[in-house]
């Protein structure tokens, strides 16, 4: 099953920082602060949950066609990072939940791990 970005916002009680298409669907999720792992394992249509808020997160998302990034534990990225995501049509969400909680909430809804290997 998949979730729409608008569902992610609701479930994670997230703040929506940028993005255009709330009906875009994600089918799996990946929680990681290691961008090399994201590059190695992630499939398309995956939402990335991370505690890192730098520009390389957006670059990584762009490379593997990640449509949405959730910053956990209430970490707000800089305006530059948000702009960079907006330019690439990547949705950015921010949730106060920790990585563990945010991943757990999505897992309970039937979202599976993204593992291309």
């Amino acid at each position, binding site marked *: 099953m998949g979730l729409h970005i608008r569902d992610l916002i609701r479930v994670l009680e997230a703040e929506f920082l940028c993005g255009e298409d709330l009906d875009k669907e994600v089918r799996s999720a990946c929680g990681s*602060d*290691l*961008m*090399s*792992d*994201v*590059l*190695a394992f992630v499939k*398309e249509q995956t939402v990335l949950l*991370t505690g*890192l808020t*730098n*520009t*390389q*997160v957006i*670059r*990584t998302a*762009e*490379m*593997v*066609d990640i449509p949405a990034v959730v910053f956990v534990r209430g970490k707000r990225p800089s305006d530059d990072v948000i702009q960079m995501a907006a330019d690439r049509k990547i949705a950015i969400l921010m949730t106060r939940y920790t990585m563990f909680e945010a991943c757990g909430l999505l897992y309970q809804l039937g979202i599976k791990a993204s593992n291309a290997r």
Partner: protein
Amino acid sequence: MANDGATMYKKYSIEPANFLLAGEAAEQIKKILKQLGIDNALVRKVAIASYEAEMNLVIHSCGGRLILKVSPDEIAIIAEDDGPGIKDIELAMKEGYSTAPDTAREMGFGAGMGLSNMKRCCDRFFIQSEEGRGTRVEMSFVL
């Protein structure tokens, strides 16, 4: 290297330790391949390999070049730098082994996955390195 029969040739200069620009060349390469109408799954593989190669140049080299060559039957990505070179290539290829500094780890890199990621993405992988001289990585993707 000459433009030997490639229908497209692009060369990007990569600055060492510039994490703000890091990924720019790989993004350009991805854009070009999409415009050429290359299949999405292949574009993704080349983009991942290019990005890892570019990050390696930013993190480890004293400056280098990322090159894209497109010919009728393959896409080639070449990363070459002016040093410092890799002491033990076999060790560097091992997943989890890394010599990256904390600045790279703070950006989510330096986990020791780069070279093996690159190798897995491409159809042919070649690496050559000499301490004090530099490193050259060639990756080809069959079209």
